[in-house]
């Protein structure tokens, strides 16, 4: 995957104020941190119980949750990375972003409502609903924590490099600042603060990107056709059509499946469905999220092409090989350094919000799945659970900073793809089968999750993405760049075969009574 947020800055690049301390961006960023910390302070007073910490008391409205989901999903990698891909590779960037979007309708059709009705705080609640708690919780935690960790590494390393470029701040300091601020959100404000950070960030990002597109389109008399014309005359018609991104159909299919179904297996996204009062609100939040995310990808498409037409490919590439600075250069080109400062601080806020969501979801896996259901065997008082959740938050905050420092300068772009692959292979198949298949058993689920996680990990290491590009071998052992088509299919097959081999009578019986809850919301967590 080429969402490479590792910037190779060329100091002799074109004249730009990028990389110097921009007073506007520093001011806006401080304002953002102040406001969000105030919200955290407000949220802290309302965050006492488990349901408040993990699920904001289930009081978030469908619309708010939709915005927060969009906030969780629209990372700096999508904003800068996809705009940059369009600005350097043209149309191919759009193919990528469409993959990220089409997972959302599937979340709606397959998991959103049953998830809300069956679960409490984590997606493992659903898988373990009628199966044996301990083995399921352990296996699901492995899948969750792997997904979260790889996603987190990619975000932290991206954050460090990005902030260094945007603000001229030292990489290490940037990573520590991100780690400390996001830990405060989660630790004190729990899900309520995290949700509002996501909402503010989503509104900032969507409005900032909209203004950017309007400013750029104004130079083309607000006519997209004129913009495309300018791209076509400068770079040729091929820039506006699919290029080299997809050549091997199997590779394309595998990546497509990872993006599409991985979205429905991301623990921090799934967790958000517990913040709304019922399945109807869960449904609404997916619709709202799909709308905003789709709109956002249309914006990044126009940002990329506008940057290409107005800033120029050479200028973009000379500053960063992956084109990640395209959106920022366009902001400077169309709105001057003050607007650049605004967009830069929005990108920073974006990273903060995403890592906060990931950390909260990791902490809930550790405290709710592992501590309560594995160590305490389901018997734990709320006080004890909250204590562990808070400790887990601090632990994950430190871990995130440590990983950010450890992986400095490493090529971690593939980790986003790996996170999606594990989510699609380990988390999604088990979640789906536990919802729809009566014959699914504990053993089947455990083997399904283990197969998906292990195959994703092993296959990506021996794939061209790591084996050739990172380890420098001349030929990959596994031919596909993304393993999902093999790892996810195997996870499904193993899950089905193991379940069929030895039916679990109890689980099948419980499936019937579970239906009242799945379809009617009868007995769901309030």
């Amino acid at each position, binding site marked *: 995957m080429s969402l490479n947020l590792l910037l190779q800055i060329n100091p002799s690049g074109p004249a730009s104020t990028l990389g110097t301390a921009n007073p506007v961006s520093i001011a806006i960023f401080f304002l953002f941190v102040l406001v969000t910390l105030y919200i955290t302070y407000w949220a802290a007073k309302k965050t006492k119980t488990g349901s408040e910490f993990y699920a904001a008391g289930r009081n978030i409205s469908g619309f708010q949750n939709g915005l927060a989901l969009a906030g969780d999903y629209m990372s700096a990698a999508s904003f800068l990375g996809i705009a940059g891909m369009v600005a350097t590779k043209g149309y191919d960037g759009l193919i990528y972003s469409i993959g990220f979007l089409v997972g959302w309708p599937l979340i709606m059709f397959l998991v959103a409502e049953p998830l809300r009705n069956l679960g409490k705080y984590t997606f493992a609640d659903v898988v373990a609903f009628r199966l044996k708690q301990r083995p399921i919780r352990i296996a699901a935690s492995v899948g969750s924590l792997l997904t979260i960790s790889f996603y987190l590494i990619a975000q932290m390393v991206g954050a460090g490099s990005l902030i260094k470029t945007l603000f001229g701040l030292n990489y290490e300091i940037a990573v520590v600042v991100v780690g400390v601020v996001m830990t405060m959100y989660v630790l004190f404000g729990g899900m309520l603060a995290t949700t509002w950070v996501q909402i503010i960030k989503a509104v900032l990002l969507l409005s900032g990107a909209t203004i950017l597109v309007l400013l750029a389109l104004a130079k083309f008399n607000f006519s997209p056709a004129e913009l495309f014309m300018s791209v076509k005359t400068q770079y040729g018609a091929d820039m506006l059509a699919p290029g080299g991104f997809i050549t091997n159909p199997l590779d394309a299919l595998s990546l497509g499946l990872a993006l599409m179904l991985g979205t429905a297996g991301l623990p921090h996204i799934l967790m958000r469905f517990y913040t709304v009062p019922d399945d109807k609100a869960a449904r609404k939040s997916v619709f709202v999220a799909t709308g905003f995310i789709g709109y956002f990808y*249309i914006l990044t498409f126009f940002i990329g092409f506008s940057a290409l037409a107005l800033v120029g490919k050479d200028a973009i590439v000379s500053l960063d090989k992956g084109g990640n600075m395209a959106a920022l250069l366009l902001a400077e080109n169309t709105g001057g350094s003050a607007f650049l400062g605004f967009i830069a601080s929005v990108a920073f806020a974006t990273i903060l919000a995403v890592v906060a969501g990931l950390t909260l979801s990791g902490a809930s896996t550790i405290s709710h799945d592992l501590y309560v259901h594995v160590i305490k065997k389901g018997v734990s008082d709320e006080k004890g659970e909250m204590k562990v959740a808070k400790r887990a938050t601090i632990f994950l905050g430190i871990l995130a900073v440590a990983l950010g420092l450890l992986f400095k300068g490493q090529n971690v772009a593939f980790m986003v793809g790996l996170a999606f692959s594990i989510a699609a292979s380990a988390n999604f198949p088990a979640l789906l089968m536990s919802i729809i298949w009566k014959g699914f058993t504990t053993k089947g689920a455990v083997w399904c999750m283990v197969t998906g996680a292990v195959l994703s990990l092993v296959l990506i290491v021996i794939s061209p993405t790591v084996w050739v590009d990172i380890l420098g071998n001349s030929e990959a052992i596994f031919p596909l760049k993304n393993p999902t088509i093999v790892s996810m299919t195997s996870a499904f097959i193993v899950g089905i075969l193991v379940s069929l081999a030895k039916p679990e009578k109890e689980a099948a019986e419980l499936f019937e009574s579970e239906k009242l809850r799945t379809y009617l919301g009868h007995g769901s967590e309030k």
Partner: protein
Amino acid sequence: MDSAKTHEILQSAEFKKLVKTRWNISLSFTFVMLFVYIGFLLVIAYNKDFLKMPLGDSINLAIVVGLGIIFFSWLITGLYVYWANNYYDSDVHEIKKKL
């Protein structure tokens, strides 16, 4: 909860139809979405020239199809919400009255 009552509802034709319709719709919508997106990827993989077909001076089929898929995602998601809000929920409401 009264288990005889629960059993009766679970066995009722009404409830069975509710569950069946729900998955008929969900799974068909899922396959349509998969078909559209995977179809798009396969057309790109096998026949890029088709997508290069110009539509007007600067816009081509690829741009229209690409943005079209985003609109389609909205449409199909909205359609599901419309169905669920107007049909599914009222059926659920009817069955729940008996609980």
